[in-house]
């Protein structure tokens, strides 16, 4: 074809089309989640948070077995011992090993945090999802939506402390009561977020397109709505878990939470109050440190997750 062109410099010949091939998309194809992991790995604070969290979780599982004492074993002769190679975190006034008690307490905290977050998640997604999906679908739909939202509003208005105290009166104070108390009002926030997300997503053109293509309601929810909310749901979870943990410590500190002899960071801190002046600093220091570290770890990791998962924070 180019034979009929006049003679010129080779450089000024028409370019070989091969130069421009395979240039369209050269970067590897990353799914949303792969991309998110990359973003988190690049975020220092998030990595620190993640490492701390992993350490706390691992130690809460194996920690108590690393020392030859159990969390409830008393030894009155060894009360209030400072840190030593026998008792790494010292002992309390009843001679119980603080290391063992700290990690036993960690279990309680994590169980409460994760359990109440999961309950929030299930109830919140169900109520918020139904409410948001039904809104705007005829009269019945709107009625279901406003009925559910009224419940949410009522619960939102009740202070959780009141609920906890009431429940403690009715039920036996303890782990289960605590989880129930925290979940009764806790799911409301999740429900609101999920409903808001669904309302927003429903208007998105890709959902309209799916509707127009004849995709079933179930598939629209599973393939279009849920995957696009997962980021925000996970971020919300990483912030509700530490809230629940803190609530547990706080309530136990006040004597409203788990009861002795079960170890909890809150009860340990409470027990330590009287001994501060006698110089047994480790009694208060370790529970307080653990509460702070856990809060920090969750929040640092949660912030990183938010940056990576929340579509509104691009770049």
């Amino acid at each position, binding site marked *: 074809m180019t034979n009929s062109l006049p003679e*010129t410099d080779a450089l000024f010949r028409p370019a070989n089309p091969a*130069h421009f091939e395979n240039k369209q998309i*050269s970067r590897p194809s990353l799914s949303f989640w792969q991309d998110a992991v990359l973003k988190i790995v690049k975020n220092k604070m998030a990595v620190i948070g993640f490492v701390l969290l992993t350490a706390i979780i691992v130690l809460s599982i194996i920690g108590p077995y690393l020392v030859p004492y159990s969390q409830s074993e008393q030894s009155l002769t060894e009360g209030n011992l400072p840190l030593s190679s026998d008792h790494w975190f010292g002992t309390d006034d009843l001679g119980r090993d603080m290391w063992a008690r700290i990690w036993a307490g960690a279990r309680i905290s994590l169980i409460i945090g994760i359990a109440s977050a999961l309950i929030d998640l299930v109830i919140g997604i169900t109520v918020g999802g139904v409410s948001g999906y039904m809104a705007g679908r005829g009269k019945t739909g709107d009625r279901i939506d406003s009925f559910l939202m009224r419940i949410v509003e009522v619960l939102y208005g009740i202070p959780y402390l009141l609920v906890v105290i009431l429940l403690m009166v009715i039920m036996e104070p303890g782990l289960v009561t605590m989880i129930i108390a925290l979940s009764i009002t806790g799911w409301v926030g999740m429900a609101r977020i999920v409903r808001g997300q669904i309302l927003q997503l429903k208007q998105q053109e890709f959902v309209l397109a799916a509707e127009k293509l004849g995709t079933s309601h179930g598939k629209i929810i599973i393939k279009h709505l849920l995957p696009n909310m997962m980021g925000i749901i996970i971020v919300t979870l990483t912030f509700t878990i530490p809230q629940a943990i803190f609530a547990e410590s706080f309530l136990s500190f006040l004597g409203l939470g788990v009861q002795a002899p079960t170890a909890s960071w809150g009860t340990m801190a409470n027990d330590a109050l009287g001994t501060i002046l006698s110089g047994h600093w480790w009694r208060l220091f370790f529970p307080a440190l653990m509460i702070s570290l856990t809060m920090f770890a969750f929040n640092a990791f949660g912030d990183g997750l938010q940056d990576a998962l929340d579509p509104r924070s691009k770049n």
Partner: protein
Amino acid sequence: MSRLLEVNDLKVSFRTYGGEIQAVRGVSFYIDEGETLAIVGESGCGKSVTAQAVMGMVPVPHGKVKNGQILFGDRDITKLSKKKLQQIRGSEIGMIFQDPMTSLNPTMKIGTQIREGILKHQKLSKNEAKEKALELLRLVGISDVEKRYSQYPHEFSGGMRQRVVIAIALACDPKLIIADEPTTALDVTIQAQILDLLKDIQKKRNSSIILITHDLGVVAEVADRVAVMYAGVVVESGTVDEIFENPKHPYTLGLLKSVPNLDSPDKERLIPIDGSPPDLFAPPTGCPFAARCPFAMEVCVMHMPDKETFSDHHYAKCWLNDNRAIKVEEMITAGSEQLV
């Protein structure tokens, strides 16, 4: 006419997650007093970033002016302190943005916003400033100014808001107005009004306008000179007639050919530019348009073309204008291309 602004070899980069984007890669242009320069290009070509740089508003910390001068009179905008820049913006350079809603403060009355602008840069009493603000509102074609003066932005329609933004930009009689897509968010009938207004103001005040736009129709209506940007470089520049009548860069030609011509009676098939612009994370070493150019030559892939000058104002950066290149007409007769 004397030179008002001169930009030399401007380079601006942005650090992002994923690498550095070279948004502006060596842009030079100038504007004289009383002139309208249109910077045309598609999204991502660097035209808005260039405007930001001229206003000294490259977003920190991600963006950075890497090289070049922006001479405004005898001052280099890239070297001025924040305070000096603020003085220049608003008093000597006025700005009009695409979205009139975000450039107005929703919680402040329109009048107050204009008056504040005036008081910040001019020594006037409050009453004098108010008088001036009312006069500006009248100038931009707002009726019932006394009442409008004490209304909030949400009480104005999109077109009216853009008029207010223009009034604020004009508050201190700037020598240069930078308008970044000033009519893109507006309807056609409103766009026509705003363009007329800009032309009118320019005539009355002899100010210079840098108009950033993607719309060739807007360019054809108001520009004196045009700089066509592609992938962070100015590929062609000239007077508006030279660009429309005698484009020397295939990209300019492509842009002109890809919009339907209302003034031609027949329904002709549009001639699109195939492909899409290059990735500015790793811009090509040669001509950035080569991959989409129907006339690309070996040399285009390897070397960025130099400036080839055709008249006082008209130049293009394209190897086709090199005398070693085969004439486009000959390529077409040789059957190697489909572009007419």
